């Protein structure tokens, strides 16, 4: 496997887990319905999910770090282990890895206390935001200036919000025990739809800015470069997710109180989530592909 493919594959679980943690926690803090003065029922349901995602981060981080050091040193894993302390101490990417590892430890510590602490989701969202920012600061955008780092961060945050809102809906519907379920999903689906709409708008705007910065206005660069072709696949997966989301919003949501529509909606939201996970994988691939030179 090429270093680009290996790096992308190693980073995919981290990109997806940090995005989902940020999105679901932010959704729980800002958008989840709750009775005044009462705790959100979603909090207790999401707690084991966050512990699972923290475990993914803990398991994937050493693999991703070692894969990255191996690519930097152009050496196999066994040789690359010796470079790890030097990379962490002396390189920009290594110092960001130290920040990442601390943030992952904080995410894990908070995830285990989520079920009993009302403020834990806000802390979880903040630590996941640190992970996303560390990713933006070690991306191509870092060489393009702080404005592009901010665009990259907003791009990732918007994608995370979209995925998080959808997964919170699916998770709450599958694992929640509510009476009546139709009322809950009607209320949540409205909020998810609004969050998804804003997220897609932000993704489109920031994605356009990052694309123009990476490829310029030359369409041949989109077609005849590795970066351009990876971007085409990412845009196709994004378009598929938006199409499914549009169908959910305009066809199924008006009838969400009906049992059949509700089931179809939740199934299609799960399909939308799969496309978004594909987008995260292609984003990891894109982050490791050299832009047109």
């Amino acid at each position, binding site marked *: 496997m090429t270093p680009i493919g290996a790096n992308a594959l190693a980073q995919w679980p981290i990109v997806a887990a940090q995005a989902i943690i940020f999105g679901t926690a932010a959704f729980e803090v800002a958008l989840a319905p709750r009775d005044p003065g009462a705790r959100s029922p979603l909090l207790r349901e999401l707690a084991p999910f966050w512990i699972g995602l923290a475990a993914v981060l803990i398991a994937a981080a050493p693999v991703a770090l070692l894969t990255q050091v191996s*690519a930097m040193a152009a050496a196999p894993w066994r040789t690359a282990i010796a470079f790890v302390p030097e990379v962490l101490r002396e390189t920009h990417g290594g110092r960001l890895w130290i920040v990442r590892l601390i943030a992952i430890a904080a995410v894990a510590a908070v995830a285990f206390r989520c079920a009993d602490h009302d403020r834990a989701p806000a802390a979880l969202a903040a630590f996941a935001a640190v992970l996303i920012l560390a990713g933006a600061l070690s991306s191509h955008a870092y*060489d393009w200036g702080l404005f592009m780092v901010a665009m990259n961060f907003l791009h990732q945050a918007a994608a995370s919000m979209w995925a998080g809102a959808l997964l919170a809906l699916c998770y709450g519907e599958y694992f929640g025990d509510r009476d009546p379920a139709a009322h809950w999903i009607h209320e949540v689906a409205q909020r998810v739809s609004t969050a998804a709409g804003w997220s897609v708008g932000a993704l489109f705007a920031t994605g356009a800015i990052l694309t123009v910065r990476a490829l310029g206005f030359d369409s041949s660069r989109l077609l005849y470069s590795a970066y351009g072709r990876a971007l085409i696949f990412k845009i196709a997966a994004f378009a598929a997710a938006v199409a499914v989301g549009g169908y959910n919003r305009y066809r199924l949501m008006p009838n969400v109180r009906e049992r059949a529509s509700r089931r179809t909606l939740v199934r299609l939201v799960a399909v939308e989530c799969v496309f978004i996970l594909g987008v995260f994988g292609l984003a990891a691939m894109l982050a490791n592909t*050299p832009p047109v030179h």
Partner: protein
Amino acid sequence: MLYRKNILTIAALCAAIMLAPRMASAHAFPKRENPAAGATLNSPPSQVTIDFDAPIEKLFAKLTVLDSSGRNLASEPVVGDAGKRLSAALPLLKPGDYKVAWSVVCRDSHRTEGSYQFTVSGSPH
């Protein structure tokens, strides 16, 4: 009114792209080499210098100058000019073809490498 607001937002975003400082592209690539790729020199160079379009990591910077027998003649490479210049001193080179091979890691942790040749035609002074 909302339509006008949207147009203004898009225009502001486009302006931001245009006005954003044109910094170096991600992944470091050579911007200028001295001696230049393919150059034929009358007198031997005292050092090889490559200027990159993005800052590079000192830890993984490599630069070799190989003669026709494959022997590396360059000294330990030095990174300077805010991390964008890689250079190595050379002994007095004899007339002949030389291959410069470099490999660097950019601040975004991505590795790039390449090589080129130059020729020394004049005799050493």
